[in-house]
């Protein structure tokens, strides 16, 4: 498995998606267990990618590329699982609906979180920027999401985070979703004060918080 991990990391360094997918396909063709490949090769590769990003050794475009590669490999794994009818092999850690709250059109911080979540095995529904409260809720319901993640870079948009939680409370749906918040002016204290379940002070922290909320080791 260590060789496979190194080979995949080399493909990411070289920016060669076809080669990465080819390596995964070959491993599967040679009898590798698809769930084992996902959990013990792809997850460690993506964790390494996330760590490199948190040290700014790589940048957002590299992260997006890694997420695309991970998705392509996951599709291969999924196909083998479906063929072999192996059950209990959900390759997503959880589903996250993410967006920048109403009034805020900043997206790069949110995109970093979104991509790093994907890299780490979450299914991410990114609903963009300037998102009204109702859109977060309706999308999360439609997608049957586990987590709603909200980003704000503006103090005057932060109240919409509180409004979303209040609205969920009012609708009697607060328990359906975990709520994670983040962004420049957002703090752990603010997250606590509005009743959010988690706060991520940067992209990697947001991933860790999401994992913790869904009790993922």
């Amino acid at each position, binding site marked *: 498995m260590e060789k496979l991990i190194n080979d995949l990391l080399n493909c990411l360094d070289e920016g060669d998606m076809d080669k990465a997918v080819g390596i995964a396909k070959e491993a599967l063709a040679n009898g590798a267990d698809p769930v084992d490949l996902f959990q013990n090769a792809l997850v460690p590769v993506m964790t390494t990618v996330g760590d490199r*990003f948190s040290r700014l050794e790589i940048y*957002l*475009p590299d992260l997006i590329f890694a997420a695309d590669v991970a998705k392509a490999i996951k599709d291969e794994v999924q196909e083998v699982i479906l063929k072999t009818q192996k059950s209990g092999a959900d390759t997503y850690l959880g589903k996250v609906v993410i967006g920048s709250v109403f009034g*805020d059109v900043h997206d*790069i*911080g949110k*995109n970093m979180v979104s991509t790093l979540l994907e890299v780490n095995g979450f299914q991410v529904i990114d609903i963009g920027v300037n998102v009204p409260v109702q859109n977060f809720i309706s999308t999360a319901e439609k997608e049957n999401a586990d987590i709603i993640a909200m980003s704000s870079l503006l103090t*005057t948009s932060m109240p919409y985070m509180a409004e979303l939680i209040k609205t969920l409370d009012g609708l009697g749906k607060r328990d359906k979703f975990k709520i994670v918040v983040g962004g420049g*002016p957002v703090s752990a204290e603010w997250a606590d004060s509005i009743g959010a379940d988690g706060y991520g002070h940067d992209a990697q922290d947001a991933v860790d918080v999401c994992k913790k909320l869904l009790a993922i080791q």
Partner: protein
Amino acid sequence: MKSHVRLLDILDKAENGPIMAEKDFDKLISTTVRELIKKYELKYDRKDAIVTDDQVADAFFQAGLELAERVGVYCVSTQRRMIFSREEILEALRWAPAELEIGRGLDRVVVRSRRPEDPLVPINVGGPFGTPLSEELYSQIMESYIQEPVFDSVVGGNFHTIHGREPKTHSPWEVLLAWREVELTKAAAHRAGRPGISVGVVENAVTEIGELSGTSFGGFGPTDWHHVCFTSELKTNYSLLIKVAHLVKTECIIHDFCNPILGGHAGGPEGIALVAIAGVILMAVVNMSTTHSICPTHPFYNCDTAPEIIWAISAAQQALNRNTHLLTTVMTSPVSGPGTESLLYECATMATTATVSGTARIDGVRSAVGVVVDHVSGLEARFNAEVAHAAAGLSREQANEMIKEFQKHYVPLLDKKPVGKSFVEVYDLKTLKPLPEWQKIYDKVKEDVIRLGLPMK
């Protein structure tokens, strides 16, 4: 106003440019930036705090100009690229003003274009730059800046509450936020005896709502300067273009800013410098703005004083100020807050970097990266401006060595975020003078930087 004839052309391009998915535009930026970094052999050198070589600065300019031409601007509202030929870009740069009068009466000042190592002292702007301020302290905090003669202009903060309520952008509250800003800023200017001082506005106008309302009868006017940004990277939208159209038709001065994110689509230090250069060029074209600011942002510390960003700012500023006469500005956005030595070293670093790189106007200080309520004061901004006065005329080589020394005092603290103290803990609210402890820190750091070679008065 010569440049403003372009408004119809800009709106046409936003409606008729080639359609592209936003994700594809982001990818276009990252691939083009990477290609240009290779083509022009641009390389961040950790050994130097700032760029000191004209050839490097000029290579950055050519690469930034090519980026602007090849990528253009993305209008998120229409999902179209606004593309400009090199001739259109150069024509806009040619007719851009090289000087600008702001303020009125005795508070009138002229912003002039500068070159790297220029002995001309840059214009200085003080203020909390969007930091959330308590409503009851807003006017006093603003007065703490306006009362300092070193400032030629000021910029406000954001309201933490509005008439005691929670402020919300994109709602009727934004109108009230804009008018509270008008009311309390003007009151502070009158009390400080500088009623004609120019103000950077409307700070509380996150959307067009606040700008349209605050720039109207009895509000802010043509002797102030009005913000219209690009969102990252190289994007605009109808909310921003509505501001542009309104400001052009009301004959107001437009100030732009763009804040490339380190580690984002632009990549590393070379990439954010390139996107900053292209951003300023394209904002001059699209926003028809007269002053142009960059504040590249660190993805984890949210500041612009990290060493990689300081270097990138020096590259971008020297590129622009050697090759155009645009009125450039740079804002200090440090991690440290009032009452800390590190804050003053962050200011010394940025103000020296910008001044020797030819920046026309030095802005600051958004202390504690502008997110901690009331963690700002006039004193650090005064220090920032005084450093700019002292650094005018220094060589880049001299500045490079000094900045390396300044950075030793705060770089190890960047991830600690020493947000310091709030305004009430560092200023006497009756006299609006710094409390002795904060004054003592200022005096000490001033002595230290003088010892390091900065000729502060």
